[in-house]
């Protein structure tokens, strides 16, 4: 098993972990941060899968616009997920 | 207008840096660069240029000269943090300082330098251009005086900041 293969294993694991965390958080802001981490790692995954085009797009969208609009939406509504 | 020209020139320099690939630039790159720099200049002139102090080349020379002590301080800072990470010895606090700078640019310069150097992190500013600094290892001496001394936190940075950006 070469080092590249280890990378190909570790990165998806991190990706899944951040996605699960993003879903499970009750605090939507923390959820948005987790989503930003996920998109960051996804971009890195695209990057090592030889798709720099898509990595740039995911960087521009995931790192900035997605998080920005989610946070704007949270700011205009409410931060905590309330379930009775 | 002057702001526009300054921004355009900055944009053009960035463009040339980005497109350099070991050969001389082709005419097409230059033409596209000029065109897009003009567009960038129009878009950014109001936010990029606040005053024309930075047009003075002397300031740029000072800036380059500043990099030396800055890197020295930065290396020191990192070994300091390394020491604290490993030993866990901290004595933090937020202190107020009055570096006596006048412009926002100089303050920014100082604040970013402070953040990157020994044991300090700029937290806030106020209208009188005072800096609030989070200090990871507060000096007992400094606590006694009320207008806190600048020296232990930011050594000679305010001087440099004044030279470079004010």
């Amino acid at each position, binding site marked *: 098993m070469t080092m590249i293969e280890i990378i190909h294993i570790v990165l998806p694991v991190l990706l899944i972990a951040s996605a699960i965390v993003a879903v499970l958080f009750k605090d939507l802001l923390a959820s948005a941060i987790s989503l930003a981490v996920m998109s960051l790692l996804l971009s890195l995954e695209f990057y090592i899968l030889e798709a720099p085009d898509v990595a740039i797009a995911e960087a*521009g969208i995931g790192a900035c*616009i997605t998080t920005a*609009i989610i946070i*704007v*939406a949270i700011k*205009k509504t409410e931060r905590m997920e309330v379930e009775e | 207008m002057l702001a526009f020209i300054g921004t355009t020139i900055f944009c053009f320099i960035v*463009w040339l840096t980005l497109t350099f690939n070991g050969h001389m630039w082709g005419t097409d790159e230059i033409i596209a660069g000029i065109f*897009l720099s003009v567009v960038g200049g129009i878009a950014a002139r109001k936010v990029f240029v*606040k005053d024309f102090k930075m047009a003075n080349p002397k300031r740029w020379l000072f800036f380059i000269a500043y990099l030396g002590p800055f890197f020295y301080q930065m290396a020191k800072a990192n070994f300091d943090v390394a020491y604290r990470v490993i030993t866990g010895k901290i004595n933090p606090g937020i202190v107020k300082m009055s570096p006596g700078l006048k412009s926002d640019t100089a303050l920014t310069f100082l604040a970013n330098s402070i953040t990157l150097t020994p044991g300090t992190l700029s937290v806030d500013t106020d209208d009188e251009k005072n800096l609030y600094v989070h200090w990871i290892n507060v000096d007992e001496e400094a606590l006694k005086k009320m207008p806190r001394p600048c020296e232990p936190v930011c050594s000679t940075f305010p001087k440099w900041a004044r030279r470079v950006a004010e």
Partner: protein
Amino acid sequence: MSEKTNGNSEGLSPIVKVISGMIFPFIMIFSFYVIMHGHLTPGGGFQGGAIGASAIVMLIVAFGARHTEKRAGEEKLSLFESIGGTLFILVAILGFIMAATFMSNFLVGSAIFGEIPPFGSNPGILNTGGILPILNFAVGMKVIGGLSAVVLAMALVSKEDD
């Protein structure tokens, strides 16, 4: 953890404002670089447009939405977007007026973007690609306008109860 109300001024601290102003033209030029070199390096109209829109989004957060709106209102950005879209379709339609089909690359061999590059590894010649750079440019305009207008519009919606 209580939200304090003393941060009611628009935008962020002066330090952030200065740095934002400093890197704004930088991001813009980088976005133009990504757009114009879309046919040579990774990137293209959409990626560059997203970066450029991010620059405007940065201004929104650093200087405040209302302050940004005075400079570049939502109307202006939407107009920008429309012009980009129109340019795209016009170039595509010119395809079957100048040449055979819709979206055909009628600029190949001409003076504008018409150079035919050598095969193999080359550093990238900007003056190639036919209508692709123009289409990239149009898409870039559209995306810059569209995405920043979206964020600006969302930022300007006021929460009714405050």
